[in-house]
């Protein structure tokens, strides 16, 4: 079966080779003519579109011999107009398709002819005695006549023919798989396509991880809010009621009744401290106002709580993706905290701007102060921010020369 498929592949290549060559020649000429006219772009796009479908056919033919499909190497084309031409032209796969159609002629013709000749010779040797017997040919070469004239001669030719069959089959299979391997080399994804694809996969999986992490943080915040915090508050309420009842008992229950009340009061104070601590934790994980009202409100609240004057400029859509919002928020929080705590700044400015340019959207966040500078970018706070923003495929730049001023600048891409 495999031999038959290989043979069919090689024989059809005898047709496909010249056809591909003519096609390449014609389209190259067409594109050359088109390039000097206004029709260059549509002609190029039409030709490459057809090329891709023809190359798909070639891939399917080769896969038939190889027994395994060949992945199409094309990268998605998203742009339109001129940009589309550039995108298509930039893909090596476009040109490798053309090279294949050019190569198919010599390779296909050579291998096809070898396969046909081998098969014909083998078949001829096997059926020669029968042929000579049924269609006597007086004018044949004397050598052949001599061989055909004797029983032993006829037997020998048939034996040689039969012995040739497996060799011929092997040869046909080898030729077909050689041609298919050339097809794979040119039509399967090359290193460029593989790397681009890999990069896309990695970007997608990173985006999933980042989203999952943002969702997880919000879940933890919610769990703390609805679980631990609520339980502690409820326990506090129960204690408060118990304390009230103990205080209003008709008679002091025991000489140390006051001690019990003190105990309850202490327990309540401890619960309050636990709650305050939890609140601080929640704010560090994901500030509630960010969930409630989004980045602009959360940054305004941060600026409002800052003991030094903060000039805030925010030009962003109402809501961005949670991961982006939260990264931007913590840039501002860290910037303001550093300005107050370490830089001895007297004023600050915060800028958050959403920019959409050439199909790519990103959020720019900038925090600048007039303090003494000298912030250490490798410090745990800033380094954590940098890693957080790099996980979003963004950039984070800290400029803080000794003597100041300090400027934090983050650029975070937003999924559109």
């Amino acid at each position: 079966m495999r031999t038959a498929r290989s043979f069919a592949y090689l024989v059809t290549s005898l047709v496909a080779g010249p056809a591909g060559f003519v096609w390449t020649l014609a389209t190259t000429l067409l594109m050359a003519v088109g390039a000097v006219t206004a029709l260059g772009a549509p002609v190029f796009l039409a030709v490459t579109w057809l090329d891709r479908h023809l190359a798909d056919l070639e891939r399917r033919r080769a896969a038939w011999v190889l027994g395994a499909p060949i992945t199409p190497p094309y990268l998605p084309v998203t742009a339109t107009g001129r940009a589309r031409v550039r995108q298509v032209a930039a893909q090596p796969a476009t040109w490798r398709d053309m090279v294949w159609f050019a190569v198919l002629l010599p390779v296909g013709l050579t291998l096809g002819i070898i396969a046909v000749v081998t098969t014909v010779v083998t078949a001829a040797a096997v059926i020669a005695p029968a042929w000579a017997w049924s269609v006597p040919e007086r004018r044949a070469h004397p050598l052949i006549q001599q061989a055909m004239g004797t029983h032993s001669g006829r037997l020998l030719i048939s034996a040689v023919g039969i012995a040739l069959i497996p060799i011929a089959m092997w040869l046909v299979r080898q030729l077909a798989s050689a041609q298919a391997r050339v097809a794979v080399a040119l039509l399967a994804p090359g290193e460029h396509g593989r790397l681009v694809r890999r990069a896309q996969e990695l970007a997608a999986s990173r985006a999933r991880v980042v989203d999952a992490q943002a969702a997880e943080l919000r879940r933890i915040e919610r769990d703390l809010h609805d679980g631990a915090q609520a339980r502690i508050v409820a326990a506090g309420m129960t204690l408060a009621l118990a304390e009230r009842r103990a205080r209003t008992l008709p008679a002091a229950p025991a000489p140390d009744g006051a001690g019990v009340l003190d105990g309850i009061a202490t327990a309540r104070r401890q619960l309050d401290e636990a709650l305050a601590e939890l609140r601080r934790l929640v704010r560090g994980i994901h500030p509630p106002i960010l969930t409630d009202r989004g980045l602009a409100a959360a940054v305004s609240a941060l600026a409002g709580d800052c003991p030094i004057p903060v000039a805030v400029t925010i030009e962003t859509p109402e809501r961005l993706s949670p991961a982006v919002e939260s990264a931007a928020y913590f840039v501002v929080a860290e910037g303001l905290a550093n300005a107050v705590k370490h830089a001895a700044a007297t004023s600050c400015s915060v800028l958050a701007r959403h920019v959409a340019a050439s199909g790519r959207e990103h959020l720019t966040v900038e925090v600048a102060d007039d303090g003494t500078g000298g912030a250490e970018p490798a410090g745990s706070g800033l380094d954590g921010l940098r890693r957080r923003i790099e996980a979003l495929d963004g950039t984070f730049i800290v400029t803080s020369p000794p003597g100041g001023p300090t400027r934090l600048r983050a650029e975070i891409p937003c999924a559109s």
Partner: protein
Amino acid sequence: MRIVIAEDLVLLRDGLVSILTGTGHEVVAAVDTADALLEAVAEHQPDLSIVDVRLPPSYRDEGIRAALRLRPAPVLILSQYVERTYAAELLADGKGAVGYLLKDRVTALDDFLDAVERVAAGGTAMDPEVVRQLFARNAQNQGVTALTPREREVLDLVAQGMSNSAICAALVLAPVSVEKHIGNIFAKLGLPPSDDSHRRVLAVLAYLNA
């Protein structure tokens, strides 16, 4: 007093109900969503609504938004966290009858019940945490730095919504000196004297919007 409660966590809703009913109030409705709150208030016309900031379905600031729609009816926000922005929004109409407390303040029962009654009577009750945020923010503000430590203490309590007599008790001061301190504070903050009963609210508001 007739009270409506909006709180989605059963544990806390039950706790609040038992505290309020145990201290002689009547909880006419205890609901768990903002929409149900608006309906219950329309139906029962309570003396006070006690509302959680976070309510289903989105668990964001539905409680604040619902409270703003209920205004000028008396509303006491009880939340797991306080946000100055929300306090400013609630006080913005200058009409009083507003409170914004952390849920843990409930455990200081007497203070909590005092706040409940104050808000229902048209006063204010701001959480010390909100006030702390105010002071942190205004630490370098000219007006506040001009205050004496004692005046700061008094302003702290005024901002929380306490009456003069409550401030007298808290700071162990004579009523006259409290009045004098408050007069000085208003002067230093540039609030002109007036008979408006909401001047104390306006003082807090002036701070929030400073």
